[in-house]
Every structure is written in C-alpha cells, then in structure tokens.
C-alpha cells in the first residue's frame, strides 16, 4: 500500500488501530469459510461512523478496495478482502445506542455482538429473536449483511424481518439513511431489504435500528429421538402441516449427535439416527397444547423416546449444544465444508435422501444438521484439506445437492450468503436476468467497484 495513504488512514483511526504489520495482515485474510484466504494491505478498527466515512472516501479517491468485517464468522468468504485492499473491522463500534421501549426498537452500532443485544433487551422484558448459532460472537452488522437466520427462524423469521432502519456509508463516503422507527413507510423505493443481505458490497452499515417484540412468557423445550432419519423428516413436515409453529425445530443426524455429545456432554442419544430439538414458546396455556400436539406427532412418526427439558437450565444446555454442531463436527476431520441448501419445508425428507445418496456415490462423510423447520439443512462434509482427491469428491457431492435443491424450488443458500464460495452457483439459481439486475444495482451503488469487490456477482 502507498505509504502516504497508510499515513492518512492511521491519522483517521489512530496508529494503534491501523495495523499493517505482516503478522496482523496474515490473520485478517480468513474467516470461517474453509479453503479461502487472502492478504489485505491494512486493517483498520474505526471507533465510529464518521471515521468509517472518512476511510471510505479516502480509499475511493485512491482506488483501494474496502472490505468490512464484523467477527469474521461468515461461511461464504464474505469478509475475505481483496489482496491489497483494506479491511475495516467494526468491533470497536459496539455501543447499544438506545432501547426505545415506547416504540419497541433498538438502535445499535454495527459491532454490537448479537447475544449482547439479547441480554440487554431481555432484561427489559423485550425480545430480539434472530439467534444464529454464532450469536455469542457474530456482530449485528454481519447479521444484517448476511440476513442471518437462527434457531428461532421458523416462528419468528430472520434478521430481515426485524431491520427497520439503517445508516449506511456509501461507496463515496456519503451517509444514506433508510427507514427508521416508523412501522409504515412507502416513500420511494424500499431500500432496506436491498441493503440487508448485501454482504458488504453496497455500503457499510454504521447504525442499525431493529424491531423488538414482547418476550414470550414461557417456553417448553423438547427432544425427540428417531431411530429412522426419514421419520424425523416426515415428523417435521407433519408438525407444520398440523398448524403448530414451534419457535425452534432443529434437526441433527447421527454423525452430528455424536460429535456434539463428545463436546457438550448433555446426554444426547448415541444409538438413534436423528433427533429433533423442538421449542414452543408463548402463553403457558397455548404452549402446553402445542407441546402435546408435537409429542403426539412425533410418537406417530415412531420416535423412540421423547424428553421435555425439566427447567430453563436444561433447555439452555440443549440449545447451546445445538449451536456448537458445526464446530463440533470438525472434531472428526480437520476440514469441514458445509452447505446451506434450502428447500420448501415439505421437501425435507426428499432432500435428506439426496444428501445420503450423494455422500455414498462420492464416498465422503457428510454430517447433516440444521433448521429443519425452515427447510434449511447444513449438510457438512468432513474431510481433510491435505487430500485433494477427497476435497474434489466433496465438491462433486455438493453439486448434486445444489442441483437437487434448485430442482425442488429451493435455493443454494438460505442464510450463509453467496460471498466468494457460492458465486459460481448464483447464475444457475437467478438466471441471466437475475444477474443483470443485480449487476445494475451494484453499479448504481458502487460504480467504482471498491466495496468488497469480487463477492456475490
């Protein structure tokens, strides 16, 4: 990097927060995505939005690319910078600006950790539902930029359903305000949904206002054991068809169960093919009925054992264990490549079948878990990056899985984003006109192409 630009950037954030030594740069070239790495030219940790704006305008003037990063936990390579670009990490911008109990909104800086917001709003009897598996480290900015889902997506939706207002630094350093605290707003194009899930390619969020809802009064957490995987899948569709909408309806297969139990020791069954983690929440009377309905459906679908968490502590343990699934799978083999194919809920059983067949055909081990209630499974290939042949077979298996997902009317990624990892599959899904419109949008926001270049399209 040009040393005068570096000096300017140092002046903006302070030398302590402008890193350019080899060692620092080397560890800002990865995120949680396997097989991808780069080397940025500088890493900046601004303290507030104005600093971000100045950074972007200086970089734009110098033609240097900017990749914004929260905690670097995304799974599509979205925070991996261009070689020679600048990384802007938002962690220091971690203030919860306001929790507005009258309007039921929270306004935060982008570096706020998701579960820190949960804690603050829940202390006031309020609720911010999106809870990705990574919530104790993921940032709100990352969640918005990826439109992250979570364990409560089935009933409560995903991040996009809660974003009301954004403050975004555009590619020239200007500030764009969209939405706000009003619940209705039809003035002009609706830009919020466009910015949500833009993966750092359209602008950098410096302020985020989200909707809050009252905290559910009570919840019941259950675990159903299924000797046959297909029965678990059919139970998922049956629960939804019975018009019961649990907050959580998570699936774990045998491989995943074993790995999670190895780490978490929460008493998961090691002798069944699958478990469903189910949580219903709301009014105590209603959830008692819902829990009864769920129990009956699971039993009808040959679940061998059905357990109900005896208290909040046990419920929390089960949910926490589920959140470790992806990382726990990495206990078995060093490299885990996971996918995020999502299908209409009624197709879950068919999708599981496809995954099993693909694993067999290409001779790879796949552990599957995920947000079954959302039709969003994470088949995870357990492999070793030092074995190129196996890696190749893993990718072949995923090709089959993607094509099947698209054929079922599903999508290549439900919540992890396109980033670098899924870029080549996007045209297959959205078609030529889809790509053209997306290119046009990128062009309108960032004609120079300096914001997180090379991602998505």
């Amino acid at each position, binding site marked *: 990097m040009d040393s005068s630009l570096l000096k300017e950037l140092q002046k903006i954030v302070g030398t302590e927060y402008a890193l350019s*030594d080899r060692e620092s740069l080397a560890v800002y070239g990865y995120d949680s995505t396997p097989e991808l790495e780069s080397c940025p030219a500088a890493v900046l940790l601004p303290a507030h939005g104005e600093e971000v704006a100045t950074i972007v305008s200086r970089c734009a003037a110098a033609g240097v690319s900017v990749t914004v990063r929260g905690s670097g936990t995304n799974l599509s390579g979205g925070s991996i910078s261009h070689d020679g670009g600048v990384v802007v990490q938002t962690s220091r911008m971690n203030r919860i600006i306001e929790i507005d109990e009258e309007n039921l909104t929270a306004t935060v800086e982008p570096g706020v950790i998701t579960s820190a917001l949960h804690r603050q709003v829940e202390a006031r009897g309020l609720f911010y539902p999106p809870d990705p598996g990574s919530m104790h480290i993921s940032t709100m900015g990352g969640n918005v930029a990826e439109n992250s889902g979570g364990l409560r997506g089935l009933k409560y939706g995903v991040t996009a359903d809660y974003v009301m207002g954004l403050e975004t630094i555009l590619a020239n350093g200007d500030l764009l305000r969209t939405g706000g605290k009003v619940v209705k707003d039809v003035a002009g194009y609706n830009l919020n949904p466009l910015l949500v899930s833009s993966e750092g390619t359209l602008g950098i969020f410096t302020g985020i206002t989200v909707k809050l809802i009252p905290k559910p009064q009570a919840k019941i957490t259950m675990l159903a054991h299924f000797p046959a995987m297909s029965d678990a899948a059919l139970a998922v569709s049956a629960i939804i068809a019975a018009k019961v909408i649990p907050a959580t309806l998570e699936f774990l297969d045998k491989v995943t169960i074993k790995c999670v139990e190895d780490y978490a020791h929460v008493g998961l069954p090691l002798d069944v093919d699958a478990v469903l983690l189910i949580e219903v929440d709301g009014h105590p009377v209603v959830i008692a009925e819902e829990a009864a309905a769920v129990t009956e459906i699971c039993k009808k679908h040959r679940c061998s054992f059905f357990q109900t968490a005896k208290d909040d502590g046990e419920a929390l343990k089960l949910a926490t264990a589920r959140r470790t699934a992806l990382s726990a799978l990495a206990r078995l083999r060093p490299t885990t490549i996971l996918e995020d194919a999502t299908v209409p809920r009624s197709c879950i059983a068919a999708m599981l079948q496809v995954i099993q067949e693909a694993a067999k055909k290409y001779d790879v081990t796949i552990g599957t878990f995920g947000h079954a209630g959302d039709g969003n499974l994470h088949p995870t290939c357990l492999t070793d990056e030092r074995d190129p042949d196996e890696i190749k077979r893993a990718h072949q298996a995923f090709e089959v899985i993607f094509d099947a997902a698209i054929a079922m009317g599903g999508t290549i990624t439900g919540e992890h984003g396109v980033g670098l990892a899924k870029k080549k599959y996007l045209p297959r899904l959205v078609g030529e006109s889809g790509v053209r419109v997306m290119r046009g949008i990128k062009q309108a926001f960032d004609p120079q192409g300096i914001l997180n270049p090379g991602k998505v399209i």
Partner: protein
Amino acid sequence: MDEVKLINCMRCGMCLPHCPTYRETFLETASPRGRVALIRKVTEGELDQSERLLEYLALCLDCQACASACPCGVNAGELVAEFSCEGKAGQGGLNFMEDLILRKLVPHPDRLETSMAPLRLYQRTGLQKLVRHLGILKMFPKPLARMEGLLPALPARPLRQEISEVTEAIGPERGSIGFFLGCVMSLIFSDASRATIQLLSALGYKVITPKNQVCCGAPNMLGGDLAGLQEAARTNVEIFAGYEVDFIVTDCGGCGAELKKYGHHGAGEAAAEFSARVRDISEVLALHADELALLLQPLALKVTYHDPCHIAHCQGIRREPRQLLKLIPELSYQELEAADACCGSAGTYNIARPEMSDRILQRKLDTIASSGAAVLVTSNPGCLLQLKKGLAEQLPNVRILHLTELLLQSLRAPVALKPS
C-alpha cells in the same frame, strides 16, 4: 509441533468471546483463532518467527478458556505454550537467570525456602512498612516493585518445615492420601494447606506429606524448560511410589493441572499411574459431601466463587467447589458473573504484562463488586495473590479465602467470621 492440532482449528470463532485478551483488544492477533493461525503460518513457512510474532503470542495468558469453549477440541493456549517452549529450546535453551531459577532454585525446596528468608525478614522487621512509606520502591525497576506489591504477609515458616510427614486420621481410618504441597502454598498460603490437611483428617484420611517432594515443574514449562519439567515429574513420581495412598491430593490448581499431565510427558507407565491418582482437594471432599454436611457449622455469609483457570479450564472442575460451599449452613451463595474468566494472574503474567493483567483484573473486580459478596473464595495461589492485591486496593471489605480455609472455619468455629 503437531500439524494436525493446528489444522483442526476450523476458524469458527466460537472461542473469541471467551478469550480475555481478545475481549480487551478485539484484535485477531490477540485471539485464540489468530494465535493458532500465526503458529500454523510459521510451521508452514509462510511467516518467520519474528520478534513481533513472539510478542503477540506472549500476550496469551495460557488460561485455556479457549479450550473449554472450542467445540472441535483445539487448545490454543496449550499450542502457544508448546510453541514458545520449543522456540526457546531451539534458541539454545535457558539464559543465566532462567537457569539459576528454574534449575538451581525451584527444584530444591530447601534452597527455595532459604531464598525467601530475606523477604520474610524484610516483612517481619517492619522494613517493609518503612520502604513502602518512603516510596523507595519507586526507585526500583517496575517488575520488582510490582512483585513486592503482590506479596501478602508471609507465614513465619514455610508449611513444609512445620508439618509432620504423617497426619493421622481422626476417628476410624478410611484410607490414606498423599498430599502434594505446592511451593507457593507452602511458602505463602500455608494456612490454606494446613486447612486442607485438617479437613482430610477430619474425614478419616491419614495424610502423608513426603518431605522430599519437589516443585511440580509448572514454572519450568512456563519458562520453556521441558527437561526441567521431566526431571521434576520423574522425582515426584518416584517419591510418591514409595507410599500406599488412595489419592494424591493437592489444593493448588496449578500443581493439580500439571501433575495430571505427568502421564503425557512421556515419563512412562508409572507417571500415567501417578497422574490417574491425582485429585484436586475439592474432588475428594465432594466424594464425602454427605458426611461433611453433618460436620459443618453455620456461617451466615454471602459468598461467591472465582473459578481458577487451572481448575475449571485445565481440569474441568466446576461443580465440586460450588457444591461444597453450598453445604455450609446459612451461607448464601452468589454466583459470580463470568466466574471462570481469568483474573489476570496467570503465573508470572501479572509481572511480565502488567498493563493487560490490570485490565483483566479490573473486569474481575467489577463483577465481584456487583455480586455483593462479603467473601470471595477461590482455590489457586496465583489467583489468591492477584485478587488479594486487587481487593485490598479497591474492595477492602471483601475477604478472600481458599476454599479449604472457609470450609475449615465452618468445621471448627461456631461463628468464626462475622456475618456481613
């Protein structure tokens, strides 16, 4: 360095919120994920083992909170320690001071005790007060002044010299225990170790404290002296093999963690057998919780517990200390927020990295203050030193005790401590 241990890190970031130095800095280089990546890049030849890189790694506390948090079984703290240790050996081994301390002093309890004698004299003659009063310490190099500030009042004599080798069981003997008396426990916290012995004997154990046992070797590991550690392991294994004991018990978290690892240091079957017998005092006491409950007298105190890293993260012991505290009648137990977060002591870290250590300590003190507890209980000498100093400066009304000290108070006195 085992390459597989490094590539097992899948960079999920689940460890980041648990790492004290990441929490303070938000820097990837100060995170477990970043540290593993740095080491990996050196072993793969992508980075040199530069001064700066070593500096980044040296900021690691080796608290192993990351290991507890890592679902895939990576232990960044241990990898850093191993890497630094290997690096040291590669650079031609120990320097003069390290050799003097690690090889000539630490492995010989009598020499270690003699070397502490001047300090004891210094405190007892009132010289300490004078020095502090006159601010003479300001003239000394900072690390020395810090060390002085950490030092609580020393017992008149090290415990090792005072106790007899065998303490008989009270009542019918249920078994015998080999007591591993940690150096710092003996030299500084002898009351706590005395309490440990008395509790065990009250529960019917004969307690044997071999006088010739040597330092567990943890300081050697810390200083990058693997050979010294192996020597310590050999000596201790041999000494304890001479006694018929059910358990080898220690009340020092750091010693316990190290003793339990002797089996891994390639010291053979005898070492593995030794390690399998090692227990933290809380583990043994918890085995007899029912009987202990009958012996304990009320203490109407609000108490909280700080998990030492060497107990919670390295040995996985969390339930037992809490269970034991809750046995004391009328005691009100208040869980500490982030109870298993490091206090910043971490061996010699509080002297080597004063600034980071103080920031980490401050967080701990804040949680102690908001717990409202009158007594803070913990069970590792490093934590006792660090927190004692912190409390004295900021929360003088909060007392700090080793777990066995509080249990003994409850065992002995009607009400030894004043209710808060």
